[in-house]
């Protein structure tokens, strides 16, 4: 039974990757957008390029994991194909887990491109590659679950993009991607502390540079796990309500 549920999730994730993720719009959100944003900052301050690696990787992760995830379910509900999944002998949690895993895999692969790019072009040595990859996976789960929540909460694809961007764009500037949170005006700190990207950036920074900006990496891990759980089960709850309406 458990085995069937796990396999069901994987099949859903693989189908989503094939159908939605490896498509030009998602590749541009996952690769081009972070590069363009990073270039803007590098041109302004070329000496700070190494400090940008962790933020760049986290931003790529955020946009790659959420770009398709935020619209997949709303799209499938409109085309009635989501009903196909609901008719299968799988629990709602399994179906949504499969949806989240699709975003996790894509986000992870996109961030790995930046990771490899950082080694080759910037010569950045990592402190602990295994833990770094694990932190990328954990962060990808948080962002993908966020995308899933957006996707189950709205009725139209346009609304999904609007809602996702409402959270994503401010996060770029508030969560230490380009400017360390400690360097932000103090009135913005509370906002930074409630956003998950802050902890993802701090954790990735620790495994790249060996130092962190805000909280101990163990705290970041706990916060990201809590975010993953809350966002995932909130998605299940919201979807259940939507189906019954």
């Amino acid at each position, binding site marked *: 039974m458990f085995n069937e549920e796990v396999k069901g999730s994987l099949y859903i994730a693989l189908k989503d990757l*094939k159908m939605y993720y490896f498509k030009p719009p998602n590749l541009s959100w996952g690769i081009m957008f972070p590069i363009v944003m990073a270039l803007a900052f590098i041109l302004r301050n070329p000496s700070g390029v190494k400090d940008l690696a962790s933020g760049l990787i986290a931003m790529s992760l955020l946009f790659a994991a959420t770009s398709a995830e935020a619209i997949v379910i709303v799209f499938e509900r409109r085309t009635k194909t989501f009903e196909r999944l609901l008719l299968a*002998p799988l629990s709602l949690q399994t179906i949504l887990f499969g949806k989240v895993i699709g975003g996790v895999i894509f986000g992870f692969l996109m961030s790995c491109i930046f990771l490899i790019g950082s080694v080759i072009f910037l010569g950045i040595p990592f402190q602990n590659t295994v833990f770094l990859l694990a932190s990328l996976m954990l962060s990808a789960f948080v962002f993908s679950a966020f995308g899933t929540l957006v996707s189950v909460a709205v009725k139209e694809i346009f609304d999904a993009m609007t809602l996702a961007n409402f959270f994503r764009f401010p996060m770029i500037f508030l969560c230490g991607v380009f400017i360390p949170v400690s360097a932000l005006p103090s009135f913005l700190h509370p906002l930074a502390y409630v956003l998950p990207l802050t902890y993802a950036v701090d954790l990735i920074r620790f495994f790249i540079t060996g130092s962190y900006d805000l909280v101990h990496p163990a705290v970041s891990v706990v916060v990201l796990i809590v975010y993953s759980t809350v966002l995932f089960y909130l998605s299940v709850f919201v979807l259940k309500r939507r*189906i019954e309406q």
Partner: protein
Amino acid sequence: MGSDSIIEVSDLTKFYRDFPAVNHINFKVKHGEIFGFLGPNGAGKTTTIKMLTGLIQPTEGTATIQGKDIRTQIVEIKKTIGVVTEDSNLYDELSVFDNLRFVGQLYSVPQSDREKRIGELLKRFNLETKGEAKFATLSKGMKRKVTIIAALIHSPRVVFLDEPTTGLDVLSARILRAMVKELKALGVTIFLTTHYIEEAEQLCDRVAILVNGTIKTVDTPGNLLVTTNSKNLEEAFIEITGLKEEIMLVEKEGKR
């Protein structure tokens, strides 16, 4: 189990806010029969199917399929039922093969059986040359056939067909009806909703007539003709549903 019923529905009810879409309905479906679920638009047919197939939860009451409760054992039930919804809910971007493989995977059909079964079903439905075609490129009739194949991949004991011939041309509708009879011959129980009364008359062993969320009667088409003193099932349906006055009124308006 000891019962000759494969589906048993008791006091099944669904409210959308204060509106009773389905209101305390009771009926049984026997093993291997074609059971027609008839009613005018908005009668609650699709809502009933959605509850029986686990897409939505009943507000009150329950039902069992093969002795399993839809409230507590729906995942187990889903393994033994096939559902053909009103819309062809497969993926336009995927090929026919990929769609059917994916559905087979969702139902945990082993890979070797899956490929064999897909091949057999495509052949039976005269679609063996369409395996590599994208679902989006198929005609409406072909899409409906592939949707039916998707519902049969895991060899279900009960198949729910929700308005299966709606929008099909005469030939495709005929082929589909022949398929329904073939499924019955294989021992599959069919739960069919339709608003084509002739279709129900041709296919169904028994029919339930649903009006405004409540069941008016459950009987064989033959008995309904006798009890309503009608020439055909359409007349009986009009009599039972109380649409007679409405139709007369419309005809009167038309003559003016």
